[in-house]
């Protein structure tokens, strides 16, 4: 059980939520939690959300994008407020994770709110003092749709791929294999790809085409196909 410490807008449809969980045992960057909501008649709805936070801290951060036809995300984005209790289970997931013991260069590739677990990895990387190169390719509709915009602004190892609109000097439009090839670390790097199903499907198959070893590419997808 957690208590919401605060929430803040990340994007027009996305919100960060900080939750205090006193008995939290810590988590690895990239893991997620199940959030369970209970209505007055006992009806329950549970969904998984990636953690943007990692390590031993009992203050967790989620960043949730509101799905227009969703059931849990509209509540978390529009209704939840500081002081509310929230039922959580986790940390969950032992595959889509990064720990400082990994010495390989790491390429992170995000589509939209898929950046959340990857930001946990960027933070864990910075906190650990790891010397392994790590960089992020972030595909997002417009600059206003970026999660963690202020925090990412301070980093120089990020390439943005804006699909709808962006700064005058930016190439606008969906990522292509050529743009992907130019933006990612060389073959032999560990790659984490997280985003909507179609985005992840395209990016992962391009990476294999470009010579990346499929066994070094970890994916996490959301939404239908």
């Amino acid at each position, binding site marked *: *059980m957690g208590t919401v410490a605060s929430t803040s807008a990340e994007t027009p449809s996305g919100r960060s939520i900080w939750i205090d969980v006193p008995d939290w045992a810590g988590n690895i960057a990239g893991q997620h939690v199940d959030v*369970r*909501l*209970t*209505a*007055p008649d006992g*009806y*329950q*709805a*549970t*969904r*998984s959300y990636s953690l943007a936070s990692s390590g031993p801290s009992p203050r967790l951060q989620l960043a949730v994008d509101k799905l227009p036809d969703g*059931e849990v995300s509209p*509540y978390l984005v529009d*209704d*939840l407020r500081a002081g*509310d*209790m*929230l*039922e959580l289970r986790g940390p*969950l*997931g*032992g*595959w*889509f994770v990064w720990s400082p013991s990994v010495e390989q260069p790491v390429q992170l590739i995000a589509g939209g709110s898929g950046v959340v677990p990857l930001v946990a990895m960027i933070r864990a990387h910075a906190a650990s003092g790891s010397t392994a190169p790590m960089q992020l390719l972030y595909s997002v509709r417009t600059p206003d749709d970026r999660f963690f915009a202020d925090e990412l602004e301070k980093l120089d190892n990020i390439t943005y791929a804006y699909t709808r609109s962006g700064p005058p000097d930016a190439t606008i439009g969906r990522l292509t294999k050529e743009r992907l090839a130019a933006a990612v670390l060389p073959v032999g790097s560990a790659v984490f790809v997280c985003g909507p*199903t179609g985005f992840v*499907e395209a990016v*992962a*198959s391009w*990476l*294999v085409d470009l010579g990346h070893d*499929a*066994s070094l*590419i*970890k*994916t996490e*997808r*959301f*939404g*239908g*196909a």
Partner: protein
Amino acid sequence: MSIFTRGFSGRGRDNNPALPPGQYLTEDFPVLSAGPTPNVDTDTWEFTITTETGKVHRWNWEQLMALPTEDIHTDIHCVTRWSKLGTTWRGVSLDTLFADVETEYDYVMEHSYGGYTTNAPYEDLRDGKAWIAHTFEGEPLDPEHGGPARLLVPHLYFWKSAKWIRGLTMMAEDDPGFWEQNGYHIYGDPWQEQRYW
């Protein structure tokens, strides 16, 4: 023991008895895969069953297609909480493929092109409970959903229905497969909500 969530009334009450606890209905077909979708060519496709004696039973695509097929109408339940009801598949029953297989072992490891594995008790793959499916809703199965052929074991959470199926290996013990080593339940019964360890 749970508390009420302030201000949450819930939208859907999917009071459908076909829906296992904690699941919601979806009309689309989400994808859960640990890595890239492998390219599997039916020209070189092969399916094997390997027993404790080392005997390997082998089928190529043409041989699989020559076996009796069944139409399967079933509900499917993903551990990530979506369920699809009334899906239609076509494929070959594992009863047909196991007909000439002699084994004393009680467990099976499913192996996929791309390296994925998942484990299941042998009895869960027998008696009309499991198939190699190659057709979904009348169309060849999409690669991202496991095409050209995946295992279909719909009474367990869908990660037990290995995509891009390549072979089955008999095991003496119930060794954990890929997701089972990464936090998912060893058996995965949706009606018992066996999601995690």
